[in-house]
């Protein structure tokens, strides 16, 4: 093993100890050597040896800390990454090296002219940098689109033009959350470009797993990936998703388990389990093109079906717009009716009530909305048109569901239903008084967002102190947070209703047995765009 340390990075006290050790050792062997300070023998022999000995001992100590699970467990942060990887590979556990946040940008142009975006151009938002991995050309007609890097420029309803390009983050971190509409800046593009915005919610990347994460994984590594006990199910789902995913498993005897009580006595009879998942740190809004049917020309009323496979387990309908719309809002949604849609062949979990199947892969919806943008003059009832639909949810609910209903995987005496965690979508407003250098609101927003999103299952509240703590860690003695903090949340309930919560102290997850809402089934979500920070400079501040 080659040392990853430099000779200049050693602990002075340890070098001194080893120097003394070598002196004593040599004096025992060779009493005639004068090894007092300043002597040549000490300078050219003892001291280089002491440094090398310290280097070796430090490496050996790190190896000792890394050579068994017991030692790694004592302090995972001190263990050597390569050694930990090697040990855990014996148990079929590998380190997730993280992934990059990806998404699409809409390049908005003043005029419909061919526009080049070179490879490696940096776009910045919320202190996060994103790059193009290859060069893209916005072209003015579909005839000019000859490969994937040619992007058709389309007219926007505000008189501008736009085309879309993919970008990736320059570092892998779970903190670079980008929501649809986030404005980006760059320095090296054509003057024809008037704006750059996120075309959709970005798919947030993941952090490289630490040794501590791996040790947590290890407890699962020895566990069979089967639909059995909770640790086994957790292991199986993590294997399917290839990452450690916050989850909560509700089953027989749990107050939140409603699906196993459909009998004349209304008592739990077991045989069912709900797997609540938080597969993404943030709610991800995805945009789909869905066909709608005109159902009432006089009322400009349209109806569309959001089938179960479009965005399995989505939380809510965010917006509906005509495809060319640049509006940030939505057409008026008249009604959204959720229902359960299950396949006619093969096994499907038993879902008796719609609220039991909300946020699952078996959820579908019918939406009626009023289109005040389209000219209805030449249309008749029954005509169809495509609309751009933004759905908010978290990914991979369908992936997990498909896996756990597999005949070879599923426990023959039970059914398993994968669900997205019941969402509390949080927004926060706070005021910071500071002195000296102005704090970076982007950094603070990212930090607060990450901290809130890290609160997974079995957390019954979002206390204001968590947010204050994040700010204090950043500000130190150069500022303070004005309390109370304004914290708001929307709870999207399984029955399709939405509850607004507001507090300066704590947002609570209150148990509702009728819909299975509890800290074991619900999670907080937020994103940097939902954190509002007002900075007030106070040079006289004394802390």
């Amino acid at each position, binding site marked *: 093993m080659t040392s990853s340390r430099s000779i*200049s990075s*050693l602990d*002075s006290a340890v*070098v*001194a100890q080893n120097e003394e050790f070598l002196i004593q050792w040599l004096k025992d062997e060779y*009493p*005639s*050597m*004068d*090894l*007092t*300070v*300043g*002597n*040549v*023998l000490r*300078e*050219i022999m003892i*001291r280089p040896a*002491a*440094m090398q000995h310290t280097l070796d001992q430090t490496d050996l100590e790190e190896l000792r800390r890394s050579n068994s699970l017991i030692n790694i467990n004592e302090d995972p942060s001190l263990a050597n990454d390569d050694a930990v990887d090697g040990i855990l590979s014996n148990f079929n556990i590998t380190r997730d090296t993280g992934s990059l946040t990806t998404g699409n940008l809409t390049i908005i142009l003043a005029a419909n002219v061919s526009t080049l975006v070179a490879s490696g151009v940096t776009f910045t938002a919320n202190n996060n940098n994103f790059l193009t991995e290859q060069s893209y050309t916005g072209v003015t007609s579909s005839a000019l689109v000859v490969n994937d890097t040619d992007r058709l420029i389309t007219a926007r309803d505000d008189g501008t033009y736009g085309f879309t390009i993919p970008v990736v983050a320059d570092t892998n971190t779970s903190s670079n959350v980008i929501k649809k509409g986030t404005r980006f800046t760059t320095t090296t593009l054509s003057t024809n470009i008037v704006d750059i915005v996120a075309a959709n919610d970005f798919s947030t990347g993941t952090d490289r797993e630490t040794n501590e994460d791996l040790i947590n994984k290890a407890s699962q590594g020895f566990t069979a990936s089967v639909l059995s006990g909770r640790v086994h199910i957790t292991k199986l789902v993590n294997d399917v998703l290839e990452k450690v995913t916050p989850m909560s498993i509700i089953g027989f005897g749990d107050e939140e388990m409603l699906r196993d009580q459909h009998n004349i006595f209304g008592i739990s009879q077991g045989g069912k389990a709900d797997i609540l998942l938080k597969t993404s740190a943030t709610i991800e809004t995805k945009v789909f093109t869905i066909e709608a049917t005109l159902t009432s020309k006089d009322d400009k009323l349209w109806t569309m079906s959001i089938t179960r496979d479009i965005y399995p387990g989505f939380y809510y309908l965010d917006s509906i717009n005509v495809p060319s719309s640049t509006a940030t809002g939505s057409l008026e949604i008249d009604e959204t009716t959720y229902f359960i849609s299950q396949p006619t062949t093969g096994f499907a979990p038993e879902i008796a009530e719609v609220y039991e199947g909300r946020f699952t892969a078996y959820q579908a919806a019918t939406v009626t909305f009023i289109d005040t943008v389209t000219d209805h003059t030449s249309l008749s009832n029954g005509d169809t048109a495509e609309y751009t639909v933004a759905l908010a949810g978290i990914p991979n609910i369908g992936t997990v569901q498909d896996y756990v209903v597999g005949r070879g995987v599923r426990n023959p005496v039970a059914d398993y239903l994968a669900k997205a965690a019941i969402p509390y979508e949080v927004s926060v407003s706070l005021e910071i008084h500071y002195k000296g250098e102005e704090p970076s609101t982007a950094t603070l927003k990212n930090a607060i967002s990450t901290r809130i999103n890290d609160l997974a299952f079995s957390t019954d509240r979002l206390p204001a102190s968590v947010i204050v703590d994040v700010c204090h860690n950043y500000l130190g003695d150069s500022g303070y947070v004005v309390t109370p903090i304004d914290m708001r949340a929307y709870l999207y309930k399984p029955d399709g209703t939405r509850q607004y919560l507001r507090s300066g102290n704590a947002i609570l997850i209150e148990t509702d047995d009728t819909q299975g809402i509890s800290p074991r089934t619900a999670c907080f979500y937020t994103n940097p765009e939902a954190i509002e920070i007002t900075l007030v400079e106070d040079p006289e501040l004394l802390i």
Partner: protein
Amino acid sequence: MAGTTDYTGRSIDLLIFQGVEESGSQQVSMAFGDTGYICTGIQKLAQKWTILFLADVGSKKYWQTEGTDILNAIRNSNIRTSQELIGHFNDAAFSVAETLTGDPDYTALEDDERLSRADLVNYVLDREGGYLYLKVNLVSVSGNSREIKLPIPVVIK
């Protein structure tokens, strides 16, 4: 000059000042020597004193307090008068003495290997050659002494 000619059983160090004679003035050079010589007694003291005196304080990564500031002062032209030179020398000599006596094994050394005092006897500034010669007399606890001349390169402005 008190001293001894019997060095049997003495602790030794590697000699790096080649050309040293028992008495008289002799030009020496810094080297390990063809065959490797050892030294003891006052010569060992003179050698270690010189090493510590000419080491810049802070230049040793893990032994930051060892050495003196005198070379730094000379290089930076901070010494402009005789009094300043004497002051810097005394300060440096004090640092060396502190380092020597700070070693827990120092008191176990023979009397002629322990420093009593270091005196700046004289100095000569060779403007053309670009050297400041320091003539230093080291006196051991036993009373014997060794005079050394240290040629320190300087830039004359």
